[in-house]
């Protein structure tokens, strides 16, 4: 058995163990460790372990992850979701389907200070779901809107999954954030279009809410200025090079913390709860990162990425076909696997292959383009059965919702997601131009 075959075999074993509910981090660690040790020897493996785990975790670039997570947690406890939803509702709530559109608006706003899809969906749901149900919205539309809206949390910067992609592929976090911004806006508009079509076909799904006086509307919209200011400062600051992404995350977390403090919602209890939730999610992400570090050390020894690139290069397939094939693999994997694990397992294999393709763009452009497309595929995976995490999270918050109903509600938004992917595939400039202005 050649090293490459051995690598492919263990790759399969790793997927199998993950399928058998072994924690993803442990599967990658164990399989990577056994593989590495059998190729390079046990003492080499033990030496790797002396520094690799702490070295992986103690990294300036990666410190942006817990900081952005903390910022999102503080935003959740500061009640920003309520402010954002109220502002968006004041503008569009009186139309048919208006509360759903307002939910998308609120999600976009919340996504601008939170880097996680699930957190955005869950936080907005606690505010918007009862309102929509009270207004007589159908369960499918309400749950579908929230699940899809949550994905704006990772499309709008900051985005945890994009940070991880940037770190493992050694790309600029700032550029990737900017690259995802335009597709994020398109996704938002696509979701609004999907809602409009839904309520046109089935007017009973989203009845109009009473209209508010103009002065009231203005007051509601005026209240969201801190969110806008913080988003502009954080992303603008990265864009202009005023500060590093890590500094931006720290500034953002401090600013949101200040907002929470002024609003009187930040007491020791809520603060410690924010810290503990940050701890839990950070621990989850970094344990997988440690597992991936070991697994990748093994993959590098097997030279699978090179072998795959050479094999496909010799096959005479058109580069765009190969790219489509990879995206298809992502779509399938994304339906049954955790998004972070999927990115960490596959990017080391696919990335050298993709950046080597002759698509008429530079390596960096392809890296950015591919990253944004991978992000959108991840986003689609979060709202498709069988394990659309967002849908489960929303569904768990309202006992009157049935799971099938919730999943049916995501279908229009899925079409919107596929359309966005198609646009990006055909016109990479959609994500490239803003990134290249930087």
């Amino acid at each position, binding site marked *: 058995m050649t090293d490459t075959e051995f690598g492919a075999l263990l790759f399969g074993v790793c997927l199998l163990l993950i*399928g*058998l*509910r*072994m*924690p*993803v*981090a*442990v599967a990658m*660690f164990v399989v990577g460790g056994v593989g590495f040790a059998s190729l390079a020897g046990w003492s080499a493996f*033990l030496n790797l*372990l*002396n520094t690799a*785990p*702490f070295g992986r*975790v*103690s*990294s*300036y670039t990666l*410190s942006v992850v*817990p*900081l952005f997570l*903390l910022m999102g947690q503080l935003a959740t406890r500061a009640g920003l979701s309520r402010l954002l939803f109220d502002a968006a509702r004041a503008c569009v709530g009186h139309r048919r389907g208006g509360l759903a559109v307002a939910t998308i608006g609120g999600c976009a706003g919340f996504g601008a200070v939170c880097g*996680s899809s*699930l*957190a955005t969906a*869950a936080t907005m*749901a606690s505010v918007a779901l009862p309102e929509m149900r009270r207004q007589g919205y159908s369960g499918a539309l309400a749950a579908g809107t929230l699940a899809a809206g949550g994905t704006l949390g990772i499309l709008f910067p900051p985005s945890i999954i994009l940070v991880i992609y940037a770190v493992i592929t050694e790309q600029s976090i700032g550029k990737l954030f900017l690259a995802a911004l335009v597709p994020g806006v398109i996704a938002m508009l696509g979701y609004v279009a999907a809602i409009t079509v839904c309520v046109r076909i089935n007017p009973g799904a989203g009845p109009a809410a009473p209209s508010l006086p103009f002065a009231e509307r203005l007051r509601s919209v005026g209240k969201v200025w801190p969110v806008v200011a913080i988003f502009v400062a954080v992303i603008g600051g990265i864009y202009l090079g005023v*500060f590093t992404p*890590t*500094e931006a995350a*720290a*500034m953002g*977390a*401090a600013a949101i*913390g200040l907002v929470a403090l002024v609003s009187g919602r930040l007491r020791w209890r809520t603060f*410690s*709860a*924010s*810290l*503990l*939730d940050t*701890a*839990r*999610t*950070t*621990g*989850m992400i*970094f*344990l*997988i990162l*440690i597992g991936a570090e070991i697994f990748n050390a093994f993959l590098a020894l097997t030279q699978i990425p090179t072998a795959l690139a050479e094999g496909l290069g010799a096959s005479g397939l058109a580069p765009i076909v190969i790219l489509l094939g990879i995206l298809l693999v992502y779509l399938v994997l994304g339906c*049954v*696997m*955790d998004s972070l*694990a999927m990115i960490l397992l596959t990017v080391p294999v696919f990335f050298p292959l993709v950046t080597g393709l002759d698509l008429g763009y530079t390596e960096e452009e392809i890296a950015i383009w591919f990253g944004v497309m991978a992000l959108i595929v991840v986003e689609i995976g979060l709202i498709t059965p069988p*394990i659309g*995490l967002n849908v489960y*999270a929303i569904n*768990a*918050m309202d006992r009157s919702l049935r799971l099938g109903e919730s999943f049916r509600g995501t279908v229009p938004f899925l079409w919107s997601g596929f359309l966005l992917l198609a646009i990006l595939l055909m016109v990479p400039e959609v994500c490239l131009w803003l990134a290249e202005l930087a």
Partner: protein
Amino acid sequence: MRRHRRPPEPAADPTSPGPSSALGDPFAAGLERLARAFALAGGLLLAGVVVMTVASVLGRYIFGVPIPGDYELTELACGIAVFAFFPHCHVTRGNVVVDFFTSRLSPRHRSALDALHGIAFTIMAGLVAWRLLVGAMRKLEDGETTLFLGIPIHAAYFAALIAAGLLAVVCVPVVHRHLRAVRR
């Protein structure tokens, strides 16, 4: 025992049967509280990094002087904080598990798998802690320090080692919990 769970659980498997029962005996409950205290301490360290970074950025733009060595402080503090997060994450079932293919199994069979994986987790945690100790001793011998402030690297390693040790220890009651579920 206090819990901070909200309905949506990042990374928790969607079909898991709600909040877990307590780990059981007082020893396990004490460990759980200790893990929580570690996570809280790590969180405060992270909050400290936030304050330090803000001060450094403001210092740089207003007074022209950043806090010296702010990058390396961030790096070491975050590294220690993340290790402090691991035990709490593990005892509250925060780690990512793909439940799609096994959701039809009986609870007993699932618990049996979880117990096996818990043992693998224990081995991993033990291995990491052991090698962290070796790594810390090497750094102590080398006398390696950070570039600007000259902070000895081994100090950070030893701090992380304490948390890694706790992670390995809390693995035991977690396995025990799964085994009890198998016998039930």
